């Protein structure tokens, strides 16, 4: 699957996380996923249909049925190697036939579950009726496989003859061993190599004993066949050969039966993969309270109460609550707000929601209206992996920006996280204004988070802001405990994003936050005086 986002961007917007969450359970599904493509501009109808199917199944099919389906798909062995062998005119082994039997079993179970659950929207894998009937004779009570007599009356007869000769040969060997025991005065002689003490064996040794090795005080021997035993042995070998030939003939016949339905089996394996991939998406939709978004033709990312799930999961695991976000973005927006107010999380939420639609899954939001994009870009000081010793943070951002601009996609989603914050404020601000103007001119959907003031106004772009602190956070009189301080900030931080009116005064919460985080009060006081 070729994605329209870079690895670094995927990490920022949670695309990696999402792909893991909707990863199919088994190899069939993984192969199906490799054949899929991310929905991009122009795929609106397909995306709409795919998401609607997933959403409908999430609404209709009980989770336990989906779990059973997953389990059933996983229980199907891959018939790929057996099919490759049989199509190359090779004869299948019993292990191949066992796997094909189990594949047919699994297929039947999947089909039954799909029928019972009335799972619509995904094609039912075909049923290789003829093969199922053919293999039936080989099924054993423990769901194993055996090249049974039922496959071939001649095999049955050959085996019966061989078994009778085995018994005769055993009797012959027992007769010889008993003779040796009497000769050597032994209670018993083992069937295989045995030690015979020289003192117990008066010369000459009888013909029933073959010496394998001589030692000073003993011989290492085995039973030597006499004429009657050799006759039975010859018959037994011939009978075994006959059984082997009949077994091979049955395998050849079964291989031909498999060859005849190979296209059906290949199709079934492919459809099992599609079922696996589909069920993974449906289970995701059930797990995370999702909605079916409107896949818009015009560029936009709009959502109500959307959640950036990787962060939500992380916060929940630490006992914190996640605040859902609402935003309407239909051009280039500028986002401001206090530190720790969730600007980056807002950017990620925009990317994540768009990514959900691109991957054909319902969106974790109350409602959403999202278009498809053919390029997703994240510009900001991101993962450490991208940094090099010779490239500063600003240098990295500039190269990211240069790459995005050079790609000139038809429709892009660009997320900019505090671009130019590490260069001189005057030039950085100028660059950012120019960037917003340029983005607006190219018609992309973008959200640009910044601490620079009046960027939206100067670039003529809509201005969004994190609401910020509802009240100053409580200050602790004791030594600063970082976790507790963060907790106090979270208690009074309003993470919601709102559209800023032209004359609306903006919060400046940096000093209050610095104070809660334990900065010297005298230093804070001096900063306030400077302000």
């Amino acid at each position: 699957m070729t994605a329209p986002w870079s690895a670094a961007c995927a990490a920022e917007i949670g695309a990696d996380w999402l792909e893991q969450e909707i990863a199919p359970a088994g190899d069939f599904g993984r192969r199906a996923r490799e054949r899929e493509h991310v929905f991009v501009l122009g795929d609106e109808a397909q995306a709409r249909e795919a998401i609607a199917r997933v959403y409908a199944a999430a609404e209709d099919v009980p989770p336990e049925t989906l779990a059973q389906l997953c389990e059933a798909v996983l229980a199907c062995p891959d018939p790929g190697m057996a099919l490759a062998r049989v199509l190359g005119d090779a004869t299948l082994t019993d292990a191949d036939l066992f796997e094909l039997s189990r594949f047919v079993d699994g297929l039947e179970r999947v089909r039954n579950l799909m029928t019972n659950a009335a799972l619509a929207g995904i094609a039912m894998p075909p049923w290789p009726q003829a093969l199922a009937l053919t293999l039936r004779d080989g099924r054993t009570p423990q769901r194993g496989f055996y090249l049974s007599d039922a496959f071939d009356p001649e095999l049955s007869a050959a085996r019966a003859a061989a078994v009778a000769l085995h018994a005769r040969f055993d009797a012959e060997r027992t007769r010889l061993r008993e003779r040796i025991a009497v000769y050597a005065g032994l209670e018993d002689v083992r069937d295989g190599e045995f030690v015979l003490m020289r003192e117990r064996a008066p010369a000459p040794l009888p013909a029933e004993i073959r010496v394998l090795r001589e030692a000073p005080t003993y011989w290492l021997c085995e039973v030597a066949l006499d004429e009657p035993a050799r006759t039975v042995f010859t018959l037994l070998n011939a009978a075994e050969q006959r059984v082997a030939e009949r077994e091979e003939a049955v395998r050849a016949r079964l291989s031909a039966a498999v060859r005849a339905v190979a296209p059906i089996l290949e199709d079934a394996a492919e459809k099992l993969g599609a079922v696996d991939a589909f069920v993974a998406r449906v289970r995701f939709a059930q797990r995370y309270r999702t909605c079916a978004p409107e896949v818009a033709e015009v560029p936009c990312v709009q959502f109500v109460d959307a959640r950036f799930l990787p962060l939500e999961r992380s916060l929940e695991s630490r006992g914190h609550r996640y605040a859902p976000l609402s935003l309407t973005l239909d051009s280039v927006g500028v986002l401001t707000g206090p530190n720790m107010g969730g600007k980056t999380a807002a950017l990620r939420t925009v990317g994540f929601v768009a990514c959900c639609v691109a991957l054909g899954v319902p969106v974790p939001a109350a409602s959403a209206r999202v278009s498809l994009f053919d390029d997703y870009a994240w510009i900001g000081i991101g993962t450490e992996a991208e940094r090099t010793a010779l490239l500063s943070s600003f240098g990295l951002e500039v190269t990211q920006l240069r790459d995005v601009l050079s790609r000139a996609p038809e429709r892009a989603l660009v997320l900019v996280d505090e671009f130019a914050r590490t260069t001189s404020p005057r030039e950085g601000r100028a660059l950012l204004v120019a960037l917003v103007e340029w983005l607006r001119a190219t018609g992309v959907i973008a959200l640009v988070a910044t601490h620079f003031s009046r960027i939206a106004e100067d670039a003529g772009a809509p201005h969004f802001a994190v609401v910020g602190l509802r009240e100053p956070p409580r200050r602790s009189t004791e030594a600063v405990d970082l976790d507790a301080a963060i907790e106090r900030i979270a208690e009074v931080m309003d993470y919601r994003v709102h559209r800023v009116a032209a004359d609306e005064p903006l919060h400046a919460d940096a000093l209050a936050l610095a104070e809660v985080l334990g900065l010297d009060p005298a230093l804070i006081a001096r900063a306030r005086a400077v302000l």
Partner: protein
Amino acid sequence: MHVGEALIAHARAIAKRSIVVVGTAKNVGKTVTVTAMAEALERRAEAFGLCSIGHDGESLDVLEGTAKPRVFLRAGAFFVTARALLPAHPATEILEMPGEDSALGPIVVARVRTAGFFEIAGPPSAAALRRMIQRLFAHGAVTVLVDGAIDRIAAVRSEDAIVIATGAASGATPQSAAREAQALSECLRLPVVDESRAALELDGALTASMVTQFLRAGERRQIVVRDATRIVAAGRSVAGVARGLDLRCERSLHAVACTVCPAAPSRSFEPREFLRTVAGAVRLPCYDVYAGAAA
């Protein structure tokens, strides 16, 4: 006497259903010992399973030149082997492919439907071996025989009965071969820790260099390992060089008997003398499978 019967009886006497044969070296008659027990179980018409620990280095059997010593099994026996080692003839009933791998590829659990020779191969890890033993029990085996390997002794558990196999291949003289068996036997029968006395508990394995350090330091405390598998490394029992130390274990293993093989590719010992020497050293019931003798 039938040695296989006697070995099974020793395991039954301590209520063990899995019997692991551990050799002191290659070519000491492990597979012959396993076969003797299989024959005994066949005589009793008792369902049994056969497995091996990994692929213990006997990539070519010296006498037969086969990939592994083959075992003659009669209808009804369960066994674990690599898919690639399943013979085309006689056809076997394949019960499951449990998703485990051996050094030779995926493992299958099968049941013999027509008597014949079969190669046995098992998973390389201790945990996987335990799973395979459980699968054999689940399929109906009453007893499971494991063709073990001293290099993989970590796979042995307290629920197993252990049969030590030694032979002329294990030492240049009967005495040196007996010493090898004695060291392994003592190691496997390590006493359990005495809770009332000072002890130094080791998290991992006791290595030869640790033994040296303890001896130099005049360590008097009990040195406690989880079980004897933690003091066997690279096919050798470290306990053999730790006579001045008070080695203990948290849980004991159960060595029940020893078998001897007087013939090796390069030498042979006088069978009765060898059997007596080993019996005197290991202080376990000792048997010569080849001679059908006991000591």
